[in-house]
């Protein structure tokens, strides 16, 4: 345990558990699938067994004969009116199945068991088509297509979610003959890359690969849709963004927004996955049948049919002069988009792959390529784990070849505020320098030369460019002196606790006296989707603004009651008091009771905070992994782990550390164990937690979390988003630690024992270009 950044009592920086911690730990929390709904029907999915096939017909007679089965719905039965080249517009395969595991039909029944029995009795007649699995080969103009596309791509929806990330000025892409499987193409170039690399004293060339990785949250996807009398629908859903779900569902089903109501249920984890996967299935079925329908995925369905992180290939060429100055970065990124490319992750990776480092010249090309695998999703820090693995491994190797300390190499080449990012955007203030200072001081780093044989310590730096969005929040003083905040932001990671602290600080009361209501999508003011580290940074500002406005109204009322100018009053620990005369104070609760929450002339003591899109505020991390490598088996044991993160301002350190530890563990999963694997016909062969290896507690060392604070100019009290950066940089730290321990350089994730053993046996040949 590290020492808290701030004393226990402070509102800002105080250590408090998230408000729903007890419910979550004891398991009493009610997730979407736990809610009782009268007359509810249960749906089970019929999944494609083919990675690519033409669907000729479906035989449903046997399924319909199962007692309790109400209907077997196919694509044609769902009342979809909108058109869009996103999976949410085609939640069931129509004529063409494009990945093994794709839902083809919904069996709807009175009980989950009947639905499951029915689903096992639907027979699909299909003609297999050519399967496209190798994303690089699929780029060739002669490649078969993974999917017949109805219309050209439209990535607009997604840009709004990762607003502010990527997509600035892109360089003209060189002419290349490419197949229509290539659906994303990005190019950033600056300086003379050939000359820069030619003039380098050391050049490293490596081909890094990362597998498909599943988010592996506790609660599988679930949605319950209830048709309403006006022809609309009410949806209860485990979703990261209820307003996003509402606007998309209105488009998909051609409904006026007024007829779509969406309520978010407590999330049992999401990590970028819970965005319109089960929603259109449940709504479509409910509208088709006129009865409430729940689609709650089993773990197998969730692994096979949702939206994991894409596999990627990152070919890097990095150069440096003998004095340690970085010269050029040439990168070619190929991201497997799976059957749907809606998340354009390669565009983010194309920026993050340059790291926070200064390059004299760079040339980065990124491609998103469709294949016959499950559609890709925005797994926590999309593009970040992949990009940071490649660049941070390459820098470490470069440092080794130059004979320069890897920390020192990073220091010498760290971008300063205003230096260009890969896409030309000037770097805002970032905390990497402060993180490197902490790394340097840490005993694990300082003592790394004195470890026993077979052990090593590696460093990896992670950066997440950040996300920003406009948001509004309202605040209301209650008659008992507590403050109620209303937002539509789904609490994915404990942000409710942070809102409490921010509002309490701004208003002058205790965090426990702030109630955060997460309102339904149609009720709440403008609220962004939880994702991309947007919530604390962007919505936190509105929380402060709303609480501040309410406080001003309270002070005007108190001023009238106390006959003291509002400017001479302060609110401290729940007491309104004249500055310099605390003994004359009146508790907020007393004032609130006296006016029943109303102020001057009955004016409600309320506030509304509406803020525009703030500037980017990147988050950054430094990871130190201490490993022992068994030279006979290749097994890597992580003996120690230190994660240092710039939080801007640590409003809720306990919650930030939770994000850090969780991210570090996920990063260890990327590094050592996790991979969705597919056979040569595109069949997923890791369909359960038996085969898909998430980290076990028993293999995770204590993780030391250290927070540094480099304020973000636009952040609430200087805070930055902290959600994504912890998962960026970890795999590289482990790879670099393995290299330090054995001399073997692993360029393929996950670094399983057989791979590590092979790399050790091959000398340093593994992965070399």
């Amino acid at each position, binding site marked *: 345990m590290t020492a808290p950044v701030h004393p226990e009592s402070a509102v800002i920086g105080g250590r408090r558990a998230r408000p729903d911690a007890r419910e979550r730990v004891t398991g009493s929390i009610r997730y979407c699938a736990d809610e009782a709904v009268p007359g509810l029907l249960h749906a089970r999915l019929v999944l494609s067994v083919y990675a690519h096939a033409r669907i000729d017909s479906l035989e449903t007679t046997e399924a319909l004969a199962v007692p309790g089965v109400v209907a077997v719905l196919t694509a044609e039965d769902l009342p979809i009116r909108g058109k869009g080249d996103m999976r949410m517009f085609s939640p069931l395969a129509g004529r063409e199945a494009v990945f093994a595991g794709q839902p083809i039909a919904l069996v709807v029944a009175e009980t989950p068991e009947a639905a499951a029995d029915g689903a096992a009795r639907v027979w699909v007649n299909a003609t297999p088509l050519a399967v496209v699995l190798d994303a690089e080969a699929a780029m060739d103009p002669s490649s078969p297509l993974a999917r017949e596309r109805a219309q050209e791509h439209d990535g607009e929806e997604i840009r709004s979610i990762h607003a502010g990330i990527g997509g600035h000025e892109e360089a003209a892409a060189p002419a290349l003959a490419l197949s229509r499987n290539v659906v994303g193409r990005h190019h950033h170039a600056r300086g003379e890359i050939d000359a820069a690399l030619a003039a380098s004293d050391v050049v490293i060339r490596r081909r890094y690969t990362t597998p498909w990785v599943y988010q592996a949250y506790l609660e599988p996807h679930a949605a319950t849709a209830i048709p309403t009398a006006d022809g609309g629908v009410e949806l209860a859903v485990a979703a990261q963004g209820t307003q996003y779900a509402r606007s998309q569902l209105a488009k998909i089903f051609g409904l006026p927004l007024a007829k779509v109501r969406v309520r978010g249920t407590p999330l049992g984890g999401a990590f970028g996955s819970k965005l319109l996967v089960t929603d259109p299935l449940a709504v479509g079925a409910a509208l088709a049948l006129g009865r409430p329908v729940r689609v709650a995925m089993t773990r197998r369905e969730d692994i096979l049919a949702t939206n994991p992180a894409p596999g990627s290939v990152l070919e890097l060429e990095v150069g440096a002069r003998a004095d340690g100055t970085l010269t050029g970065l040439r990168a070619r990124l190929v991201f497997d988009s799976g059957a749907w490319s809606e998340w354009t992750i390669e565009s983010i990776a194309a920026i993050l792959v340059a790291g926070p480092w200064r390059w004299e010249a760079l040339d980065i090309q990124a491609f998103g390529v469709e294949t016959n695998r499950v559609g890709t999703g925005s797994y926590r820090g999309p593009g970040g784990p992949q990009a940071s693995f490649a660049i941070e491994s390459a820098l470490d190797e470069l440092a080794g070849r130059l004979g320069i300390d890897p920390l020192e190499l990073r220091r010498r080449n760290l971008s300063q505020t205003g230096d260009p990012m890969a896409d030309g955007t000037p770097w805002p203030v970032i905390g990497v320098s402060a993180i490197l200072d902490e790394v340097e001081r840490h005993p694990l780093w300082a003592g790394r030369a004195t470890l026993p044989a077979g052990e090593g310590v590696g460093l990896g730096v992670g950066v997440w460019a950040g996300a920003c969005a406009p948001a509004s929040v309202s605040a209301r003083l209650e008659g008992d002196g507590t403050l109620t905040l209303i937002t539509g932001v789904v609490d994915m990671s404990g942000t409710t606790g942070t809102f409490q602290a921010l509002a309490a600080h701004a208003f002058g009361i205790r965090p426990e006296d702030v109630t955060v209501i997460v309102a339904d999508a149609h009720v709440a003011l403008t609220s962004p989707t939880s994702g991309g580290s947007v919530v604390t940074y962007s919505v936190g500002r509105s929380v402060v603004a709303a609480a501040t406005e309410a406080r001003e109204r309270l002070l005007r009322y108190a001023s009238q009651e106390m006959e003291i100018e509002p400017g001479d009053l302060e609110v401290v620990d729940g007491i309104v008091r004249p500055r310099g005369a605390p003994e004359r104070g009146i508790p907020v609760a007393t004032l609130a009771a006296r006016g029943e929450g109303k102020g001057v002339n009955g004016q409600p003591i309320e506030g509304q905070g509406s803020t525009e899109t703030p500037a980017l505020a990147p988050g950054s991390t430094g990871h130190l992994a201490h490993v022992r490598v068994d030279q006979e*088996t290749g097994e890597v044991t992580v003996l120690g782990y230190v994660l240092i993160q710039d939080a801007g301002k640590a409003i809720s350190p306990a919650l930030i550390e939770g994000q850090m530890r969780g991210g570090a563990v996920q990063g260890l999963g990327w590094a050592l164990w996790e991979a969705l694997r597919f056979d040569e016909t595109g069949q997923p062969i890791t369909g359960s937690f038996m085969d898909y290896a998430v980290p076990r507690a*028993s293999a995770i*060392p204590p993780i030391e979390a250290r927070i540094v604070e480099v304020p973000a100019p636009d952040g609430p009290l200087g805070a930055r988003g902290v959600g994504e950066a912890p998962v960026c940089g970890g795999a590289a730290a482990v790879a670099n630690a393995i290299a330090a321990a054995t001399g073997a350089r692993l360029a393929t994730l996950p670094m399983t024992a057989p791979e590590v053993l092979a790399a050790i046996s091959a000398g340093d040949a593994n992965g070399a270009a």
Partner: protein
Amino acid sequence: MSRYLAPAGLEEALVALAGGARPVAGGTDLVVGVRQGRFPIPDDLVAIHRLAGFRGIAEGADGGLVIGAGTSHAEIVAHPRVTRDWTGLADASAIVGSPATRATGTLGGNVANASPAADTVAPLLCADAVIVCRSTAGERRLPLDGFATAPRRTLLRPDELIVAVELPAPAPGSASCYVRLEHRRQMEIAIVGAGALLRLEGGRVTAARVAMTALAPTVRRVPEAERILLGSDGGAAAVTAAAEAVAAAATPIDDTRASAAYRRAMAAVVTRRAIGGALARARGETVTIPASDTLFGAA
């Protein structure tokens, strides 16, 4: 819909088995198998975990041990005679699944399930275990060696129950060890494993047992390796040769967890470590239980 019977006495359970019911003890294999769709849930289930006299460890008159088939892995690891004299079995039971699996899963279930990766079988083979089976027709005592005939197949008849596992008294100067390789340190199917039992007398190996896990269709002994060790000094050359003999005898599978080539290479490594652990114990040195590296999840 299946039927579930939970009798109090053995006779009642045996009658149910004679009528076609299938036994369930801890259910940690059976339930998972059904969930994974490996087989349908049996129509009739007879719960045996609460049968009187089915659970517990008794010392035999000859210094051996009689372990009730319903004894949990946790109970086995907690038993002082097991940890002292059948240390290899303790090594194995200590790493079965998680604390919950060990509290629920039974020795009888592990043996009856006949998984090629079942952890207790290699040390039980090294201990010359005898399986005591009962049916309404009476009792049979079968050596464990040869009891499993193929993956998930045994000599057990459908109407028979394993009631106990008998372990003869260990010879003085002998000790055993079991080592498993798996990459997440807990809750994982063995990639490979090996058990060894060695008796040292005056610096010579006078008895040797070596068995391998997840390296053949059934967990089995490797007589080639045992012959190399027998009469040797237990030195590095003999140990390496025995380990190589196990690798040569192995017929490992290729799957997502590891390739056949890796498994074969690791067969030699775990065998060397298991023999090394048994020799060290036979010399009176301490090798902690479990002998496998469990890191932060030590039992």
